[in-house]
């Protein structure tokens, strides 16, 4: 998962590496996801998060569809 300056840079990067496009988010959306995804990581009572709870986080952020299916 990488940062890119613009759509133009994204397209050039994919072309240069002969990669199929995956999914693109704004950095703001990724920050929103990060707050939910990583916010409990340092909790002293952390437990592994079941896949359905992780999937629910993605869905709350609006990341739905086949690409975002964890299992």
């Amino acid at each position: 998962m990488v940062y890119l300056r613009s759509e133009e840079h994204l397209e050039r990067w994919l072309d240069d590496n002969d990669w199929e496009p995956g999914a693109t988010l704004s950095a703001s959306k990724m920050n929103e996801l990060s707050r939910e995804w990583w916010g409990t990581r340092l909790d002293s009572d952390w437990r592994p998060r079941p896949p359905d709870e992780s999937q629910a986080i993605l869905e709350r952020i609006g990341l739905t569809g086949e690409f975002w299916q964890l299992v």
Partner: protein
Amino acid sequence: MDAFDLDVRRHVYFSVVANGRPPSTTETSEDFGLPEPEIADAYRRLHDAHALVLFPDTTDVWMANPFCFGPAPHRVMARGREWTGTCAWDALGIPAAFHGDGRIESECACCGDPVALEVSDGELVRGAALLVHILLPARRWWEDIGFT
């Protein structure tokens, strides 16, 4: 994941926060007063459970996500220390994990030009126009967690 492995995992993460690096199995064995092979087995189980990531064929911690201990272009200043994020998502995950502010210095994957992001009070106040690209669909992320 049993209680012992959770204890070991907690110790690794708390050591990361306190020291800026993960403890070796030798250090953790000394802290727990247990033989090193027992701790090494716990590290391997945590790796298999995706609760830690070890460097290949070692018990050295590569990632205690979102914190990374190998080379990566995503430097994160948070909680008074410089950290490394494995990827664009993990880099933003470090201030998120701390529930604090953070500055990220990274690069555009296309041109290598520097990019900067800043999180303040949970919001991205700098770098919001940047894009994040994920090449692999979610169910393939753990095939090679260093390349997503």
